[in-house]
């Protein structure tokens, strides 16, 4: 099985307000096509871990490998490129650019990557939106659609550059049961049918139980 993401001996300290050891010797691997969830109590460091894995937080000790390539200590510019090309994000609070249309929101990361023509990007974006059953919202402003719809737009945006892995920080935390179900089904489908790796931080036990593997965290350590 091909390894997508690997963490080796990750340690992280918070300096403020007092020195605090947040993450202690984190080691794990995520394989291609695997749907993994991270669970744990508030403050156990699971979000902190996610932001380190996502390359946005660079102040840690240890090594991080994406597609078997070391990404620790790369420059910020290179990390931006890695996020752009290989990692897709879904946050708890949907985080769309409210001044742009749904379609533009989805297209932006691909435009930044600039590997395809404008026309191809647009077709891709429309295809992703249609896949998630929100094609009809394409030309609406991102601020004018409902919460569940926003989350699906965020998923479409995460998918636009065909990333190696999708990361979610409580993607269903803000949604009602039905929408949560929807989002889970979309994730599941991406993992089984498109062979995409997923790493989701969640509080929702029902959601976690349905995933392939649960990483349980407590006090900065992986306990199972």
């Amino acid at each position, binding site marked *: 099985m091909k390894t997508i993401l690997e963490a080796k001996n990750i340690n992280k300290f918070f300096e403020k307000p007092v020195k605090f050891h947040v993450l202690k010797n984190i080691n794990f691997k995520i394989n291609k096509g695997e749907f993994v969830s991270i669970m744990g109590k508030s403050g156990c460091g699971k979000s902190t871990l996610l932001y380190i894995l996502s390359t946005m937080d660079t102040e840690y000790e240890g090594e991080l490998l994406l597609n078997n390539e070391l990404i620790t200590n790369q420059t910020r510019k290179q990390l*931006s490129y890695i996020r752009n090309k290989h990692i897709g994000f879904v946050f708890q609070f949907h985080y769309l650019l409210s001044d742009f249309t749904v379609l533009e929101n989805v297209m932006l990361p691909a435009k930044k990557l600039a590997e395809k023509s404008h026309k191809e990007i647009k077709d891709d974006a429309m295809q992703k939106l249609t896949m998630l059953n929100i094609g009809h919202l394409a030309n609406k402003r991102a601020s004018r659609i409902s919460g569940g719809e926003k989350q699906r737009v965020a998923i479409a945006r995460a998918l636009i550059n065909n990333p190696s892995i999708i990361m979610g920080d409580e993607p269903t935390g803000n949604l009602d049961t039905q929408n949560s179900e929807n989002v889970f089904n979309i994730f599941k489908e991406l993992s089984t049918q498109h062979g995409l790796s997923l790493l989701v931080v969640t509080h929702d036990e029902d959601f976690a139980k349905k995933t392939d593997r649960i990483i349980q965290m407590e006090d900065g350590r992986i306990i199972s």
Partner: protein
Amino acid sequence: MVNWPVILSIAKTHLFSKIKQTATAALGVTFGIGAYITLVSFMTGMNKMLDDLILNQTPHIHIYNEIEPSKEQPITLYDQFENSVNIIHSIKPKLGQKKIHNALPIIKYLNENKKIKGAIPQIKTQIFYISGNIEIGGNLTGINPIEEAKLFNIGDYIIEGSPEALHNTDNGILLGAGLAKKMSLSVGDRVQISTIKGAVFPLKIVGIYQSGISDIDDIQSFANIKTVQKIMGEAENYITDINVKLFDINYALPLSKKIEQQFDLKAIDVNTANAQFETGTTIRNIITYAVSITLLIVAGFGIYNILNMLIYEKMNDIAILKATGFSGEDVQLIFMSMAVLIGLIGGLLGLIVGFGLSHIIDNVPFKTQALPTIETFPVNFNAWFYLIGISFAMISTFLAGYLPSNKAKKIDPVHIIRGQ
């Protein structure tokens, strides 16, 4: 590699989604630049007019025989008192003639100099204007009207008649406006003048001269050189003054020194004769630029403020952009291009506003006795002002955008995403 189309399209969307703020910021620049253009055009136009007022009619070098005591008194030439201290009381000016010796060859010589636009002779003399049994003291200057009009714009100050009319009338006179009023004379009348020696001549008034300075207009008149020579009973080579106009005024001082040495005459350059005028010009220019720069800086702070606010509002957007793969530099460029776009649009509008206002001022009637040739407010339409204006708009918005955008570049996306 910078992906400009994407960055610009994001900047554009931000600008248009907050159109009111954008417009306010751009208007700040517009008013700053517009006011700068208007002010600087008007002020320099005014300055130029005031300078011209003096420079147009003033010779760059004025050559004449000064009445002054000899620099070397006879005693200093006597060897035996060489090491003594000599004190001489009641020194009198040296007796000499008023006329310039060999004036005509000197004029010819000066006119051959390539730096000199023209050197023309004048005769200055005191006379009395006779009106009934009243005698009014005054000056009569003998000129060559055509040359005088060409080099020193005397035509601008003749409010009735023309230099040609004087040239064509043998015993004609251009009477000062104040004199004409005092003696109730007008063009076509005759005026009697008397020389200091007592000879009386009737002269025909062919024009009225008004310099704008009433002290001069009350005493000054002009006639042809030949007429004055005739009145004074002098020969054709009797010349008291030579006025020189140069192509480059900066050459006046060295040339005047050279002439003084070469011909043993007094030669005064325009800056020495009108030292106060240069000081005035410099101070007015300083004021103009101080005010303009203040205006532009105020506009710059406006942009800084609005961009700063915009960045606080767009924190989320910045975090998303960074999370989805835009680098800090990309985000900075987005905000910088917003600032520069505001500067460009505001600046261009400012140029138009400035041009419009200058144009309006240029058409406002402005009549004053002192300046017979001026009919509207003077405005200097100089392309340089517009170039400076737009450059300053761009530079100040660039700087005003730099600091906030630098902050946006450094924003940590994790901090914002987790903070919510």
